[in-house]
């Protein structure tokens, strides 16, 4: 046995050294990224790290039932971690370490557990192989070499395990045999083998197990399976807050803005690219991918990784990068058209099991294009100019902002006298259809006796689209002007009927020195109804009502129930849900500045959502956002359904229910 231990010791040390070196080579590249603090609130982070991986909450969802197979494999893996650790140590120090040295009770229990867990793992692997061959999910490369190598290695490990123990059992040298049902079964197949043969087979299977295990370990850093090392830390460093904002830029001369090279990402971004398990759930829910756009979130993350692996070693040794991050049509380079297709809906972030933050990286790259190179789709030139010069996306004279109120009595916001600023927003002020929502909300506020006032023609755009398009420079200017105005006029509480204004004023403005209490009109209406300040009858003749979740209301700010509850009060019953609702609600297509952009490739996202809505055969569609309103109105017109389906904002529906 002695030469065997020596041989194994050499193999073991070599394998571990190689593994360590591979890991070092890979992970030192992550250190190239910019600094970011992801170690605040350590208690909550440790809890995340224990909760999500070990309950496998992230992988098991109704939408992806096969996630359960992964959960099973994961739990088996954790148990077998102990078994394999014992295996390796036993190989090095057989005289000192073996579970067979434990008292019978403990030994038999462990032997039983390992036996059962190994067969479950093997079955899970088999199921995975069948799935990849027979019913592969779309959006990923299911039959990849990487996947089959890993699955084969795991299967090999299990088979070697059984071969090994079956040999011992057949040879009669396993005292836990009665507690190892599967291995005993396999031992039956060795019945014809001689005693010497069994010693050899046990040795052979032992070496197979050892080699496969150490090979697997060394294959890890070069495969997507590295996620077994990065996934749990990813849970620790995940974003504890919702991803509804982006970081500020520091506008100093000589600074570089945005991310034009891979090392400009933060280390967390780069770690994300390693953590990706290539599960494809992000692509599955992405509205751009769904409608045939070149944007595929999984490939964006993959390209970042490929770029880091290519350029990282060069950059680390102070040489020039060779693969541009933005622009190419090759792996590791993200084309500009991909970057502009994103609506920032956040579905990708919502479904990712390892907490990767996809779209903030896209916005970072947009910042590079806009702020460093002034490269953006031509139709945005007009938009940026209008924002800079007229503080609204359409370049309409600011004096027209009060046109919506021409026929009613509106008061200007007065410090100390008015409680709420009704931030009308650009769409609510200038867009004919959305003006009706503004009027409806004004009526509701008056009916409920809310103290409110407006800024009138002094109101400026909140700047949402600017920030999501990467034009942080103009965004910062507009924010500062707005904050100055709010402070001068004593504005603390703001009502908005646009989720984008709401989210921006609440989450983005928070990064500047201002205290604002922002409430969305759906929340306010729901509160007013609850407080009995609104007398509602049932709004009749709206027919079958379908509700659409706005991304900036739902996913970005967790407002799902308030509008639904308000609807129930207004129409007497809950609305019909579309197939994709709540957390996986499908975007209308206007977010992320896409409202101002031309649809170049593939189907229009709003058409896809309208088709989904029409499947429910609605008579009324309820929206809570002026972008969604515009998208649905346009989409229904193009589907020639605008004569039988109407789109109404929640405020308009509640007005109809007002006594």
């Amino acid at each position, binding site marked *: 046995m002695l030469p065997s231990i020596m041989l194994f010791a050499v193999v073991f040390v070599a394998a571990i050294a190689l593994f360590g070196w591979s890991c070092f080579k890979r992970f030192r590249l992550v250190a190239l990224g910019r600094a970011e603090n992801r170690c605040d609130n350590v208690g909550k982070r440790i809890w995340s790290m224990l909760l999500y991986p070990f309950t496998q909450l992230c992988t098991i969802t109704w939408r992806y039932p096969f996630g359960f197979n992964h959960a099973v494999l994961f739990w088996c893996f954790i148990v077998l971690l102990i078994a394999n650790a014992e295996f390796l140590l036993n190989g090095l120090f057989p005289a000192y370490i073996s579970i067979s040295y434990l008292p019978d009770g403990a030994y038999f229990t462990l032997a039983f557990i390992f036996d059962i867990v190994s067969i479950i793992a093997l079955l899970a692997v088999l199921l995975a192989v069948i799935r990849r061959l027979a019913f592969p999910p779309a959006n990923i490369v299911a039959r990849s070499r990487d996947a089959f190598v890993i699955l084969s290695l795991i299967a090999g490990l299990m088979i070697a395990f059984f071969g090994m123990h079956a040999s011992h059992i057949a040879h009669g040298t396993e005292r836990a045999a009665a507690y190892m049902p599967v291995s005993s079964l396999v031992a039956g197949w060795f019945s014809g083998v001689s005693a010497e043969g069994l010693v050899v087979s046990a040795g052979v299977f032992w070496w197979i197990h050892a080699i496969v295990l150490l090979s697997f370990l060394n294959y890890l850093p070069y495969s997507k399976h590295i996620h077994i090392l990065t996934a749990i830390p990813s849970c620790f460093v995940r974003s504890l807050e919702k991803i509804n904002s982006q970081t500020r830029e520091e506008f100093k001369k000589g600074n570089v803005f945005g991310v034009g090279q891979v090392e400009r990402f933060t280390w967390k971004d780069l770690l994300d690219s390693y953590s990706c398990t290539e599960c494809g759930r992000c692509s599955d829910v992405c509205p751009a991918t769904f409608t045939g756009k070149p944007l595929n979130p999984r490939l964006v993350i993959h390209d970042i990784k490929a770029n880091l692996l290519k350029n990282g070693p060069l950059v680390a040794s102070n040489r020039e990068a060779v693969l541009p991050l933005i622009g190419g049509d090759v792996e590791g380079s993200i084309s500009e058209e991909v970057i502009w297709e994103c609506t920032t809906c956040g579905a990708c972030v919502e479904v990712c099991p390892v907490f990767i933050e996809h779209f903030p990286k896209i916005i970072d790259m947009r910042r590079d294009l806009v702020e460093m190179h002034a490269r953006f789709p031509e*139709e945005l030139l*007009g*938009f940026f100019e*209008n924002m800079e010069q007229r503080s609204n*996306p*359409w*370049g*309409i004279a600011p004096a027209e902002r009060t046109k919506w109120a021409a026929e009613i009595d509106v008061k200007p916001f007065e410090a100390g006298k008015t409680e709420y600023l009704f931030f009308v927003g650009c769409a609510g002020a*200038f*867009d*004919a*259809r959305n003006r009706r929502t503004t009027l409806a909300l004004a009526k509701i506020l008056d009916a409920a006796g809310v103290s409110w006032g407006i800024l009138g023609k002094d109101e400026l755009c909140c700047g949402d689209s600017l920030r999501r398009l990467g034009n942080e420079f103009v965004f910062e200017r507009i924010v500062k002007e707005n904050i100055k105005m709010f402070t001068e006029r004593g504005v603390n509480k703001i009502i908005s009927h646009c989720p984008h204004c709401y989210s921006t004023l609440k989450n983005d403005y928070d990064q500047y020195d201002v205290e604002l209490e922002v409430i969305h009109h759906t929340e306010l209406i729901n509160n007013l109804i609850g407080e009995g300040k609104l007398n509602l009858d049932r709004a009749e003749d709206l027919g079958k009502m379908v509700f659409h979740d706005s991304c900036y209301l739902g996913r970005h700010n967790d407002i799902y129930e308030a509008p639904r509850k308000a609807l129930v009060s207004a129409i007497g019953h809950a609305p019909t849900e579309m197939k994709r609702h709540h957390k996986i609600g499908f975007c209308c297509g206007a977010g992320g500045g896409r409202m*101002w*952009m*031309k649809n170049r490739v593939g189907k229009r996202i709003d058409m896809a959502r309208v088709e989904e809505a029409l499947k429910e055969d609605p008579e009324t569609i309820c929206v809570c956002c002026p972008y969604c309103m*515009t998208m649905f109105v346009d989409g229904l*017109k*193009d589907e020639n359904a605008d004569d039988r389906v109407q789109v109404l904002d929640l405020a308009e529906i509640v007005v109809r229910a007002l006594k």
Partner: protein
Amino acid sequence: MKAWRELYALLPRVIDFIPRATEGDGVDITRVLALVVVGKGACDAKNLPMLEELAKLLGGTIGCSRRVVESGLLPYTRQVGQTGRTVVPKLYIGVAVSGAVQHLVGMQGADKIIAINTDRQAPLVQIADYALIGDYLEIVPRLIKGLEERIKNFKGSKK
């Protein structure tokens, strides 16, 4: 041999290649003084020649709204609006154009805006200098006839 080299040196060098410079049909609607803009309500290949005739009589050309481009009737170079071109003609005639703000932003700088629409409440009608409420199929031929007579009389006048 030397002559060829000298000739070669005289040939223009390509310093930049801009694809799609004459995309569509090469017409730049931002440089035209009169525009007849076709809206979804007039998006009909059959009636397009009539509208082109009107545009010609005015010394201008045809533009259109986004829906007309998406329907395939006219190329993207003719699109007026937020995601198309911004135009500032001296005369803008919107034929069956509703005038949602996404379109208005592309033509609000026009000197004179005339709207032809059956819908009195259409946003374009609200902001137009003059609005002709009715079916464009009846109105436009009369406009054409009237313009032709004016031109004839003007040419004929020998004062």
